[in-house]
């Protein structure tokens, strides 16, 4: 990473802020507040003590949902990838579930889990778990057969094979899946907080929408977007590094 590699994305950020300012000039304060006051408002909001419980609520829901999505997704993905027939049976069902608008299922989740934290966690995990399963399953399916034969020669048990062979060998792909899962879990958790919620950033956002408090709406949107983009950039960097390592590995062997 050199300074140069940061310059162009920085220019993009600058032009986005400039576009925001222009849109603000065109649409007026009622539709879109200007960048500088919005960011000041965001800073004020964060420094208020009553903001913290909401942040903690969302962070807690997100962390639990992410944990379920990651562990469950990798576990199920390894199982389905390792067993060809069950993978073939499950894949179209999973792809179908992946592409339906899950928000229509939110009322069902609310009825099943009740109002509050469990429903948010369930909805977030529901969004995140499927891509993790799909990525892991495909990675495990395409794992180098030699590794599996080596595992069999060493008489590894199935769980040992999964832990010592399959997961290390597919780590880069699994990580890509986790990255997608991370984004979708965040989206799901936030959506879960928009409806029938008493706490959390989504609740603040919905209240702001009802009050037509554009500054707060934008401030929260920016806060969440910043969080998502920064963490995603970090994960993308790790992702690239993992993939580069494997490329070099296989290149060295060939």
């Amino acid at each position, binding site marked *: 990473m050199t300074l140069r590699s940061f310059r*162009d*994305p920085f*220019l*993009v950020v600058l032009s986005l802020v400039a576009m925001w300012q222009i849109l603000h000039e065109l*649409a007026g304060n*009622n*539709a*879109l507040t200007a960048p500088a006051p919005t960011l000041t408002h965001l800073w004020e909001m964060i420094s208020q003590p009553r903001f913290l419980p909401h942040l903690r609520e969302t962070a807690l829901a997100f962390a639990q949902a992410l944990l379920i999505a990651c562990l469950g997704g990798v576990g199920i993905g390894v199982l389905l990838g390792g067993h060809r*027939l069950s993978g*073939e*049976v*499950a894949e*179209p*069902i999973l*792809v*179908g579930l*992946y*592409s*339906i*608008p*899950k*928000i*229509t*299922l*939110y*009322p*069902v989740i*609310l*009825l*099943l889990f009740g109002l509050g934290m469990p429903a948010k966690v369930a909805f977030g995990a529901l969004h995140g778990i499927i891509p993790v399963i799909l990525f892991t399953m495909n990675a495990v399916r395409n794992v180098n057969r030699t590794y599996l034969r080596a595992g069999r020669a060493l008489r590894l048990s199935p769980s040992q094979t999964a832990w010592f062979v399959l997961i290390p060998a597919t780590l880069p792909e699994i990580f890509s899946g986790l990255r*997608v899962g*991370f*984004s*979708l879990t*965040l*989206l799901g958790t*936030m*959506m879960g907080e*928009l*409806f029938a919620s008493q706490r959390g950033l989504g609740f603040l*956002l919905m209240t*702001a*929408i009802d009050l*037509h408090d*554009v500054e707060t*709406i*934008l401030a*929260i*949107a920016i806060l*969440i*977007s910043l969080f*998502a*983009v920064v*963490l*995603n*950039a970090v994960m*993308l960097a790790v992702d690239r590094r993992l993939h580069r390592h494997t490329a070099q590995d296989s290149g060295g062997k060939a």
Partner: protein
Amino acid sequence: MSKAAWIRLAILVGAVGGLEIACRSGLVPATMVIAPSQMAAATAGLLASGDLGADIRQTFTSVGIAIVLSITGGFTVGFWLHWFPRLRRAMDPFLAAYYAIPHFAFYPPLIVIFGLGALPLIVLATLFAMVAMIVATLAGLDRVPRVLLKTARMHRLSPFEEMWRIRLPAAAPYLFSGVKLAVSYSFIGVIAGEFILSTAGIGHEIAYAYDNFDNPRMYGLILFVLAVVTAFNMLVYAYERQLVRRRGAA
């Protein structure tokens, strides 16, 4: 049908049947989930009564417009980004992080700008779906084999011909997965927006039924949306399969 397809069918039938039994026997209270047969009856009743006609029309028109805009717009933007590598390198981190941003947070400002109606929903869904198409276009154009481009040069194809006869067909599988994503994201964008804030549309009707504890109506509508989206996805999937088979045979 293959063995896997039979097992899949058995699992689905078993799941629906199990839910039916659980609901009928009172294991799952009707305030939570209603029996699948009642859901289907509710869907049929809603469609037959015809009072949903306007909502259905509005939702599907919005989705249709969003699909067309996001596919053409996404392809055009992807094409130009591919043409200017420097611009693309600058945009890459943002494209990768795009789907981590909660878009619906920007829906209220859109309403203020475009008014309450179908337009902000279309804009929201298009913005949501377009980036999937951009990324797919870039991926497809990146993976055109060099040999094909050399062949194009040998035949002295003009840039336009090279695009039409070489690059597009070679990138087709990736473009197709972009189209699939754009379709499902357009549905998600429109219906999620209707859910949050809208006066009409299927998403609004579902949220309204939920607020009124009208479970049969709510489940009937949910089943209808899921059935339409799944049927649409299966059509695209079948067409893609056919395309792959033809390519394999050629």
